[in-house]
């Protein structure tokens, strides 16, 4: 099955393009100190707002900091945060969903009511409210996005668990005397996790956008952190005199989000044989 998915992905040029960009971004993030021409927070006030030149390939910002270097170091913020947020969200969401579906009864009822409530809020609005209480900052922004995000995974996983737990192989294992925990982890989880993986990839794209958005509003990353959304916000004031301040960070956000979305779309198609069949029929 995993081999199938890889084969599908290899044939999907767009998904492959996404993977290449993601690897490139990870490479840039890891080796930032060697790639970046300048220190990302070093201020050269005499050279502020200068246009792209050979010394500063993408120009400098309002404090004379090298924009290219800040973008490169920005990958060190956006990528790990998005991956951590989605990793935690995914783990919490899947665990609660599996427990809810497997146990059923009152536990399930209570969990699903909580999920219903969380899903009735437009996600970002609730995240904003949580940040209002906790105070601004990139860490709190991450917490807010986890609180807002897990419910979606829970609902999907719970649905799959409900159908899988009635299958004969589960009954078989239970008859052999396996514990609930063993059945859940070894037999049910592997069967329900596939449909949520593409969702997690698309989720990374969403979280990168959300973190950039919150930082743009001044509620996420705080200065002098070279976060892409915060850089856009800095550049806003200098739109007339130095438009390059706001063009490049936006481009960085878009390309990164696009890469994760392309991979997510590709994974979804690869994991959904029905979609594959449909496409083949249509191609004929």
């Amino acid at each position, binding site marked *: 099955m995993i081999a199938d998915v890889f084969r599908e992905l290899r044939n999907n040029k767009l998904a492959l393009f996404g993977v290449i960009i993601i690897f490139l971004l990870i490479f840039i993030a890891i080796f930032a100190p060697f790639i970046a021409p300048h220190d990302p927070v070093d201020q050269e006030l005499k050279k502020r707002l200068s246009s792209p030149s050979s010394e500063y390939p993408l120009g400098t910002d309002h404090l004379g900091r090298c924009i290219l270097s800040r973008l490169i170091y920005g990958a060190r913020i956006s990528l790990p945060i998005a991956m951590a947020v989605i990793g935690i969200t995914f783990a919490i969401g899947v665990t609660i969903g599996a427990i809810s579906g497997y146990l059923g009864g009152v536990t399930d009822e209570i969990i699903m009511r909580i999920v219903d409530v969380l899903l009735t809020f*437009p996600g970002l609005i609730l995240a904003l409210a949580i940040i209002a209480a906790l105070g601004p900052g990139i860490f709190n922004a991450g917490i807010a996005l986890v609180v807002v995000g897990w419910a979606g995974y829970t609902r999907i996983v719970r649905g799959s668990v409900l159908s899988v737990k009635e299958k004969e192989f589960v009954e078989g294992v239970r008859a052999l005397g396996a514990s609930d925990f063993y059945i859940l982890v070894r037999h049910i989880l592997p069967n329900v996790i596939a449909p949520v993986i593409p969702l997690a990839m698309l989720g990374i794209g969403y979280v990168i956008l959300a973190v950039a*958005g919150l930082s743009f509003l001044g509620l996420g990353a705080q200065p002098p952190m070279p976060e892409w959304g915060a850089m856009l916000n800095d550049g806003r004031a200098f*739109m007339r005199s130095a438009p390059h301040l706001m063009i490049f960070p936006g481009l960085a956000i878009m390309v990164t989000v696009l890469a994760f979305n392309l991979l997510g779309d590709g994974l979804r198609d690869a994991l959904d044989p029905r979609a594959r069949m449909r496409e083949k029929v249509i191609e004929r």
Partner: protein
Amino acid sequence: MLKYIAKRLVLLVPILLGISLLTFSLMHLIPGDPAEILLRQQGIIPTQEAIEKFREQMDLNDPLPIQYFNWMYCLLHGDLGSSLSVSYGKPVLTEIMFRFPRTLELAAVSLLISLLISIPLGILAAVKQNSAIDRLTLVGASLGIAMPVFWLGLLLILLFSVHLGWFPVCGYGSVKHIILPSITLGIGMAALTTRLMRASMLEVLEEDYIITARGKGLRERIVILKHALRNALIPVVTVAGLQFGWLLEGAVFVEVIFTWPGVGKLLVDSISVRDIPMVQGCVLFVACVFVLVNLAVDISYGVLDPRVRYERS
């Protein structure tokens, strides 16, 4: 049908209770003593006396369940508390009711723009599947989904306001003021809808009744616009409720960038000064509006498609 609507309404009760509970708890999510922190935020030195007075005023002394009960009691009587800073002392609800029509205005125009872009483009891309138009549409949609709505807004300002000078940079008032903000939001939303419209149209075009319609010798234009479009629109209407949520989120950014005096800007302004009652009010209000819009979509969907009514009841 009435039974279906009644059932939907009953299901709303626990959700509304949950929303109120979550909103109420915001005040108590504040790390540390909310009274002290909120006083500091207002520039008042938190002396023992000031803290006591503030606690009394904000009803923070009772045990939590009683606080919640009191808060709910006020809420049900239309009292959401008073603003702590943005518009000091003003009732939260008055301010929100004053701002909300402007957000609604922005959302409605944006929705219109997004439908004007996405429906024709979606149809065209599906009908000419795999053509250059189709590929361009798909690439455009992918870029549109990945593009931060706040960046798009800034780029539009740069081009149309700063360079060409066609529209004001920001503000509220005339028709000219609403064009750029609503295009920004409309394009962002159109990216999502176009993809959906195309996929749904492709599916419908495979149906037997389309083959029949073509077999009857109807002109292609009639087959597409009369037979296929109606059915292809159903999934687009279904997700309209969710899309509205997206619109509200996007409106926050667009309102901030264009200084559009709506609820989104009010929310962000209140957050930066930690005007918690105002934040609570905005969140509660937006969530309720979102729930009601989804209810309306569900009901209208039930009216349009009897199958839904039976399945869900």
